[in-house]
């Protein structure tokens, strides 16, 4: 499924809709796109959609920013500065993955083979000053979430 996003506000709204579509279960979502494409903006919308009112800082420096919203745990990873995927082990990735949480992972290719397979892969591409967001479900849960997202614009 592809969606044209003309402006940042629509990217935030899309993030919130994605959060709703994921329901109450855990999910692993990979976010692909160049610098400045809007990956963190989508995450900001996602977190706000779940009711998060505080800051959404870039995790580029800290590699992961954790959030606790109500009973839910959400981890926002940015693997941009990761030199090798085995570094994920040193970050304690296994401890994180044991939880039934939502994982939003930017630059997942830098964590290849050390990350579990995603439920959904999101690709954000430039189209001039607009963006094209493409959702590719990879599991049954992911497929249901994307269907839900598509049927509820």
């Amino acid at each position, binding site marked *: 499924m592809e969606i044209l996003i003309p402006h*940042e506000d629509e990217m935030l709204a899309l993030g919130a809709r994605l959060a709703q579509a994921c329901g109450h279960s855990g999910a692993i979502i990979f976010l692909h796109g*160049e*610098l*400045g*494409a*809007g990956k*963190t*903006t989508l995450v*900001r919308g996602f977190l706000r959609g779940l009711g998060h009112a505080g*800051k*959404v*800082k*870039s995790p*580029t*420096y*800290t*590699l992961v920013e954790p959030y606790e919203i109500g009973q839910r745990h959400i981890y926002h990873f940015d693997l*941009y*500065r*990761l*030199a*090798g995927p085995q*570094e994920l082990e*040193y*970050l304690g990735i296994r401890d994180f993955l044991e939880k039934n949480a939502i994982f939003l992972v930017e630059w997942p290719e830098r964590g290849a083979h050390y990350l579990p397979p995603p439920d959904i892969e999101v690709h954000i591409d*430039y189209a*001039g*000053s607009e963006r094209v967001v493409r959702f590719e479900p990879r599991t049954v849960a992911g497929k249901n979430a994307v269907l839900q997202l598509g049927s509820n614009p």
Partner: protein
Amino acid sequence: MRVVGIETSCDETGVAIYDSARGLLAHALHSQVALHAEYGGVVPELASRDHVRKVLPLLRQVMNQADTRPDDIGGVAYTAGPGLAGALLVGAAVGRSLAWAWGVPAVAVHHMEGHLLAPMLEDDPPAFPFVALLVSGGHTQLVRVDGVGRYTILGESLDDAAGEAFDKTAKLLGLGYPGGPALARLAQRGDPKRFHFPRPMTNRPGLDFSFSGLKTFAVNSLQMQGGDDQTRADIARAFQDAVVDTLAIKCRRALQQTGLERLVVSGGVSANTALRERLGRIAGEEGAQVFYPRLEFCTDNGAMIAYAGCRRVQAGQAEPLAFFATPRWPLDVLAPP
């Protein structure tokens, strides 16, 4: 009293000795930049291992330089956070153990407190209270400093740090990562009139920052206009002007809001010449004075940790025998010693 300071929060190993009567006696730094450069980022595990290798040789070096024996040491300070957990644990383990072996107090220092107090190492230090702007790859904060351990966060970045925005925009412009200084050089040949970037969050009250939109603006400009040399220089110029302007507007606002007359600027981005010129001008207009730590103390170093630690040891602070690292540690929970 002489205090050893150990800094290992990220990719620099710093060790220093500060004497409460004579000032900074010696400091040494090992930068891991070359180690991480081939990877284009900081490798947490490599960083920890390199700290292990470097911290004791650096300690011996500063002890020799300062003509100091273990008997002369009155305390050991180490950075306990915020930072990379593994890297912090090296400094904390070494620092706490040394203090135990030498029978002196150990003090866990907050990394950002070190930066806030770094200008105190200079000959002409600012008096309290002052406003501090910390701008680096990991942080952008405006802090009111009323004394050691008395910090109020006035504003901070809601998304990317200013230095991070510099580094990422540099990458977009094909200057490598991290490339903040390279971007500043490219901006010198840029036309300031060709592009106009927004000044995020300056048209509403408050002292928070947001820099991620500027990166997007740079991408969009590059997409629309193509990436020839002059266009890249013009984008670099417009980007830098926007960051400098935004930081300056917020600093002016912080001075006006607090009524304070001293502005301290620290962190890696404070080396930026355009920023220094601009802040000098607004401080003049506001009747304020600007203080910078020397350039080598604008980035991570052991001297600032030795200073902050010395002030806290002198006030009687001491950690229990256990050591800890706190990768996430808000600045405003600190208390005076």
